[in-house]
């Protein structure tokens, strides 16, 4: 009784509330031992059990003819045609990267790649969505350099190209950066693998690295508030080994393709326990494992460590009955540690033995069915006031040309070349559209004429000011980015990075954002096939808890039926005509311009009309596939003027445009407002393009022509004529990141 009372008092150290501990006691009808409490704590953590977010997930659309595998497996899979599927998923490694950026980011890449090849897919692209604090601070430099080095270290060595991503800077991420990594893999439909234990009698095979005391309690650590206490957690760093992972990848795929694997899963958060527990749950069966057989890197490891260690580069494979030896033989070639550590049983418990004794015996269901919390969200008054703020008093700057160079030089908008040139983005020889060339990456599918496109997007300022509209806008932007390269959007994965959900204003953001994503995905026919949740992204400043800007990163995948019919953003020469598909912006609300130039994060986010969005996407796709244009770019941060400049810089070709808009709209809104549903294109064929756009029934405007060595924009009604040389724009755009990286 004393023992149990002690455990109950210590429930918090296992990541359980006292109520959860009592619930556990009631469910099993006895006191758990410490190992069992820790296992339950890990399985019920946000990371594994999604206790705060799962009730919201039911709003997501998850089905569609293109979905081969929806949420619930290691990764989602979409059908791209010709018997090919694409597995994809995004995952965060925020807290580990805040502590040790190189290894934190590296192991983030390693972890998401394992999710992909666990599906039987060969990883063929990585994208990374990164958020840091103030670009001028030494801490940001340290984190950015470390994260970039970590991604390069792992991705380059394992030989999967890093083909895209985003890097943005905002003070809310100063202590708590976001490192979200998305990976894509290619598979033949028949090779689709599942994370299941299969049937009674199957054996459970451990393969990969030995188990050390790495990242112990990592699942709890990842869900705990990040505060000064995390200094003490520092030894919780895990070191990744891309070489080992490469062997594991080849071995796993070879085994799956040889047809000797009935189930497979990587060991991620909460290591051995979560992987085997989830596989047992999917099979609806129990298992028994002998912890004495776990290969260890250090002496004297105890069950708690063996169970919860987050040592990297480890997998669980379940052989097809009768093919056990074949599997072991095949793995031997790769010189990995391989041990049969348990078997699937007719009972329904998760049973572990150590030194001849049963040390854990809990129902598989209980472990996998974390309590769910539906909380009450209340919008923050402070944020509401910012949104409702009247912006009519904001002055229009006298020198709108200087604004253009200032925006291009903002680290969030500026060229990311100094970063992506450290990533091998061409290995595997499939990358048709490389980083920096367009709004999304495009990889060809060898042996077919198709291409796969991918992008990751989120504008956290929009989400902050209006979580519903901002999150929906992230989906819309992702779809638009795919359309700009000529890809039909297929499905998304999401990474929900938020603060502490116990705080009503944070729960409000989470709930509204989920609804926004769900509605946009429904409207744009891009179901959610998986995702990841990272909560408690905040830190303590004095006595105050500061949450990050809510950041629901959207990773979207699309298909190009003919990869040669693709578009990039660079102007392809002089004498082409520029069009805006969609309508001019009419507000500066929530824009990067308002923040950078006027120091204000305020106003309503641009209105989102998903029907219009779809029409603009369809129009752009039609033009690209009809061969009427191969040059397209969407308007995002910085608005029209910045987007035009990016096209000019990328193509080293100037342009001259005239905006004949009513003077009732402010000039700065026309130039720098961030309205949705807008795509810029350039074409040598005016007549054909206009006919096609008219037939599509979308609004469009002829803006002007390409050529010259300036970006010149006239607003005759406003008596404004701004002209900046291409070299000045290029300089502004290309220098900032190199300086931050140092």
């Amino acid at each position, binding site marked *: 009784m004393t023992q149990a009372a002690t455990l109950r008092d210590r429930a918090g150290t296992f990541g359980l509330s006292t109520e959860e501990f009592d619930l556990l006691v009631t469910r099993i009808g006895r006191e758990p031992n410490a190992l069992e409490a820790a296992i339950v704590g890990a399985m019920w953590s946000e990371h594994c059990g999604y206790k705060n977010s799962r009730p919201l997930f039911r709003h997501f659309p998850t089905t569609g003819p293109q979905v081969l595998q929806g949420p619930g497996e290691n990764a989602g899979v979409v059908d791209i045609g010709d018997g090919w599927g694409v597995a994809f998923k995004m995952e965060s490694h925020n807290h580990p990267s805040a502590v*040790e950026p190189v290894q934190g980011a590296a192991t983030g890449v390693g972890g998401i790649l394992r999710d992909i090849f666990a599906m039987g897919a060969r990883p063929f692209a990585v994208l990374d969505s990164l958020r840091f604090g103030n670009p001028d601070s030494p801490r940001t430099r340290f984190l950015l350099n470390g994260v970039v080095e970590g991604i390069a270290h792992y991705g380059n060595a394992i030989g999967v190209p890093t083909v895209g991503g985003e890097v943005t800077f905002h003070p809310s991420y100063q202590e708590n950066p976001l490192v979200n990594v998305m990976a894509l893999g290619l598979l033949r439909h028949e090779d689709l693998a599942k994370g299941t234990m299969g049937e009674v009698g199957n054996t459970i095979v451990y393969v990969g690295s030995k188990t*050390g005391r790495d990242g112990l309690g990592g699942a709890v650590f990842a869900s705990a508030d990040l505060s000064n206490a995390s200094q003490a957690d*520092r030894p919780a760093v895990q070191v990744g080994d891309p070489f080992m992972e490469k062997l594991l990848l080849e071995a796993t795929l070879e085994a799956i393709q040889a047809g000797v694997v009935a189930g497979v899963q990587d060991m991620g958060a909460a290591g051995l326990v979560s992987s085997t527990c989830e596989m047992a749950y999917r099979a609806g069966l129990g298992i028994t494992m002998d912890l004495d057989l776990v290969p260890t*890197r250090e002496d004297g490891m105890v069950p708690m460590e063996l169970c919860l260690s987050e040592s990297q580069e480890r997998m669980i494979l379940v052989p097809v009955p009768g093919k056990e030896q074949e599997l072991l033989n095949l793995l031997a070639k790769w010189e990995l540690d391989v041990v049969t550590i348990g078997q699937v049983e007719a009972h329904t418990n998760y049973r572990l033995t150590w030194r001849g004794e049963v040390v854990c015996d809990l129902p598989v269901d209980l472990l996998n069915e974390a309590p769910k919390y539906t909380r009450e969200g209340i919008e923050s008054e402070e944020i509401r006031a910012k949104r409702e703020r009247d912006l009519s008093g904001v002055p229009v700057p006298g020198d709108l040309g200087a604004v253009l160079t200032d925006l291009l030089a903002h680290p969030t908008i500026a060229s990311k070349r100094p970063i992506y040139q450290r990533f091998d983005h061409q290995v595997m020889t499939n990358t048709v559209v490389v980083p920096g060339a367009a709004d999304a990456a495009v990889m060809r599918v060898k042996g077919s004429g198709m291409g796969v496109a991918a992008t990751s997007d989120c504008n956290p300022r929009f989400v902050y000011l209006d979580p519903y509209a901002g999150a929906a806008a992230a989906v819309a932007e992702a779809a638009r980015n795919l359309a700009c390269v000529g890809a039909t959007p297929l499905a998304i994965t999401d990474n929900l990075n938020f603060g502490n959900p116990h705080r009503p204003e944070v729960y409000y953001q989470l709930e509204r954002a989920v609804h926004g994503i769900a509605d946009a995905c429904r409207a744009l026919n891009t179901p959610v096939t998986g995702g990841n949740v990272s909560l408690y992204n905040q830190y303590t400043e004095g006595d105050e808890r500061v949450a990050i800007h809510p950041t629901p990163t959207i990773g979207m995948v699309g298909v190009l039926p003919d990869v040669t019919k693709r578009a990039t953003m660079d102007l392809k020469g002089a004498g082409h005509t520029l069009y805006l598909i969609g309508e001019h912006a009419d507000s500066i609300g929530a824009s990067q311009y308002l923040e950078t130039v006027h120091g204000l994060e305020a106003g309503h986010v641009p209105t989102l009309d998903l029907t219009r969005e779809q029409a603009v996407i369809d129009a752009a796709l039609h033009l690209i596939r009809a061969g009427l244009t191969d040059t397209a770019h969407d308007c995002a941060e910085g608005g029209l003027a910045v987007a035009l400049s990016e096209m000019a810089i990328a193509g080293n070709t100037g342009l001259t445009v005239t905006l004949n808009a009513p003077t009732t709209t402010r000039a700065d809104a026309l130039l720098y407002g961030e309205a949705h549903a807008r795509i810029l294109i350039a074409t040598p064929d005016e007549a054909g393009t206009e006919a096609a756009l008219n037939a599509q029934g979308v609004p469009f405007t002829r803006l002007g022509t390409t050529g010259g060595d300036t970006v010149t924009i006239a607003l005759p009604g406003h008596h404004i004529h701004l002209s900046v040389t291409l070299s000045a724009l290029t300089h502004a755009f290309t220098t900032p990141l190199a300086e931050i990286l140092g």
Partner: protein
Amino acid sequence: MSTFKAKVFVTLKPSILDPQGRTVERALSHLDHGNVSGVRVGKYIELTLSGSRAEVEAQLKDITENVLSNPVMEDARWEISEQQGEELVGA
């Protein structure tokens, strides 16, 4: 004012995985050096510092712990010796 030669040794903490050491060990065993074990690969840094011994020792400790090694995952130690040749020149 004297000149000192310092040697800094940085090794991964024993509990931390050393992928490089593991790979080298395996390679050696394939090359018929199966009697080799416990391979750990670290860094060896040489530097020269000028100043008084007390100053330089304090500085080296700081540099070793805060720049040359990452205390999250590495241990470091250092040795220092006064450069006789230099001293003579200085004298």
